[in-house]
């Protein structure tokens, strides 16, 4: 799956975009977040407070319960501030 990071999440993870092969038990946003946090201190820091993070799955707003699959595009970002 393709993972995107914006704003402070991009800065903390150190990358804007990556393609990952998640373990089989990653089936929703919550389990994806838990797995991503194990990938390094930048990820753990970026995703520590999920109340400050918004998520979109395939460019639609989603939440922790939204299912994710291999070909999905999942984006993490702070609440939008508008233009």
């Amino acid at each position, binding site marked *: 799956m393709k993972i995107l990071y*914006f*704003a*402070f999440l991009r800065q903390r993870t150190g990358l804007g975009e990556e393609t990952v092969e998640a373990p089989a038990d990653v089936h929703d946003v919550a389990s994806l977040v838990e797995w991503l946090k194990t990938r390094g201190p930048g990820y753990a820091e970026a995703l520590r407070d999920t109340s400050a993070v918004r998520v*979109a799955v395939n460019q639609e707003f989603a939440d922790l319960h939204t299912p994710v699959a291999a070909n999905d595009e999942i984006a993490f*970002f702070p*609440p*939008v501030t*508008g*233009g």
Partner: protein
Amino acid sequence: MAVRVQREDFDVGAEIAVLTAGRTDIGGVATFLGLVRDIAGGDEVKAMTLEHYPGMTEKMLAEIEAEARERWPLDECLIIHRYGRLEPGDRIVLVVTASAHRQAALDSCAFLIDWLKTTAAFWKLEETGQGEHWVEARESDDEAAARWDESPTKAAG
């Protein structure tokens, strides 16, 4: 009907001219041009970098434009939003709405800019004398956008 998210600057007069060229059915064109201010929350702003989500940002803009066209009888509608690093005085956003009736043009323009300023998928990194920081969502903006959850003002002429 168009939505553009671009790094480049835009020309307000040229954009209006294109929308209205040869048209004799448009009575009013409402425009909102947003500029970068040198002050935000009391701090001097040296520059601002706008980040967006390519694909999703445009999709959301197209959806809100479609909603505006549904709520008001618009002949034309244009939204341009820039991203990247901008300095005080730079143009950042343009909304143009055109209708036979001025109230429809005015109301839809205000609706769109309220939405853009609160709900559009952008994130802002401000450079101030105190360093860089990400701007957080603001309450007063959310209130302005919430006004539009009511039914629109009737076109008055």
